[in-house]
């Protein structure tokens, strides 16, 4: 059965390692914070200027001066720090953030990502996504395997305007976990529970390498 959003977030949370600094994009990536394992400590960075981001505040304790990059009210945890935007992207560009999780409209089998603009639709902008994908050494994309029309979002080449080239390392969709390899393209590493390799193959347009053994995810 295909994973729901929380399932995708849960699977990604298993990638987190003790001591990592992590930037979570808007949407499914934000949910990852809810599933951090108890035996590790990670610090969440939000690019508008906080390290050590905590959960949403209790009702009545919202502070207009304390939001995340999605403009949601948040809290700060002990050990947190605030800083300005140039410092925030300084740490992003200098690769101090060990993991970036973000959504995508399309990913290519070369690791290109398109997630900011649909021609003909109102363009809202790239926000910090282009900076993040250009610098992060470890990018996981969280997305549905197909779009609303049922077309694959895993392509040979992105058709939408590019956010960054050759940057995505791993993709977790509702159907599968895939890695991006420069020679092999998408490498199918795990299937969602009950999802067949055939279904994944049929819903993937980009070059896909299927190893002999593709285990089901454990979540």
């Amino acid at each position, binding site marked *: 059965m295909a994973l729901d959003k929380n399932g995708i977030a849960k699977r990604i949370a298993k990638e987190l390692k003790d001591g990592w600094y992590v930037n979570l994009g808007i949407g499914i990536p934000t949910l990852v914070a809810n599933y951090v394992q108890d035996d590790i400590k990670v610090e969440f960075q939000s690019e*508008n200027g906080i390290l050590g981001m905590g959960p949403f505040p209790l009702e009545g304790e919202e502070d*207009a*001066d304390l*939001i995340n990059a999605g403009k949601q*009210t948040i809290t700060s945890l002990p050990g947190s720090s605030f800083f300005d935007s140039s410092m925030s*992207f300084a740490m992003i560009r200098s690769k101090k953030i060990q993991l970036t999780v973000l959504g995508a409209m399309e990913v290519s089998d070369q690791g290109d990502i398109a997630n900011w603009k649909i021609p003909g639709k109102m363009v809202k902008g790239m926000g910090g996504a*282009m*900076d993040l994908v250009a610098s992060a050494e470890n990018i996981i994309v969280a997305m549905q395997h197909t779009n609303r029309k049922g077309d694959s979002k895993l392509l040979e080449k992105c058709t939408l*305007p590019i956010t*960054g080239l050759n940057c995505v390392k791993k993709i977790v969709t509702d159907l599968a976990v895939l890695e991006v390899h420069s020679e092999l393209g998408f490498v199918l590493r795990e299937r969602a529970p009950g999802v067949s390799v055939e279904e994944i193959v049929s819903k993937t347009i980009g070059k896909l390498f299927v190893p002999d053994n593709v285990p089901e995810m454990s979540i």
Partner: protein
Amino acid sequence: MISKVIHNLDEALDGLEDNMTVMFGGFGLCGIPENSIAAIRKKGTKNLTCISNNAGIDGFGLGLLLENHQIKKMISSYVGENDEFERQMLSGELEVELIPQGTLAERCRAAGSGIPAFFTPAGHGTEVAKDKEVRVFNGKPHILEHAFNASFAFVKAWKGDETGNLIFKGTARNFNPSMAMAGKITVAEVEELLPAGSLEPNAIHIPGVFIHRIFKGSVFEKRIEQRTVSKHN
């Protein structure tokens, strides 16, 4: 002796003219110079090119200048959440230049640091890199980006003193420090305006040397864009 402290908003905007390029601190509605924006609306300055990470919402923030047709061009990283913005952009009334957020911040910081240009990897291979110089460093392509050039910067701080020293609070800091450094004339509005010597010199985020005018804002509405809460147990 000269004082940076101003007592009415006309003084704050002295020299602001049609067609100027102006920076506004803030991220979303967080840390925006509300009082200066209201004053610019009242003054009616037109054809402004605004450098601001976002463009406000309908009826608040830079939305107030948009609906009054005072903005010719927005230079931002993200501009959603604003119907009037969308209408003006689609109708061609409003020009929009979208810039990666980190590049936007760094171009402000560069302007305030006397660095006319720098290389960044952000945007390589995208339409942002169009017509820009590309150079490879450590095996990775980077693009050349230039410092902004803004006649005014309007910023909002938490505490300030008479010499212009500023301290920001929480994530309301965001673009305010870099823009404060970048303005040819920088106008700071603060929640608390204190005598010189009231702020801990080690705790100052932006030294007064960058600030030309400072005033205590009369109203800070501080609207929240996305009120998200956790449930009480």
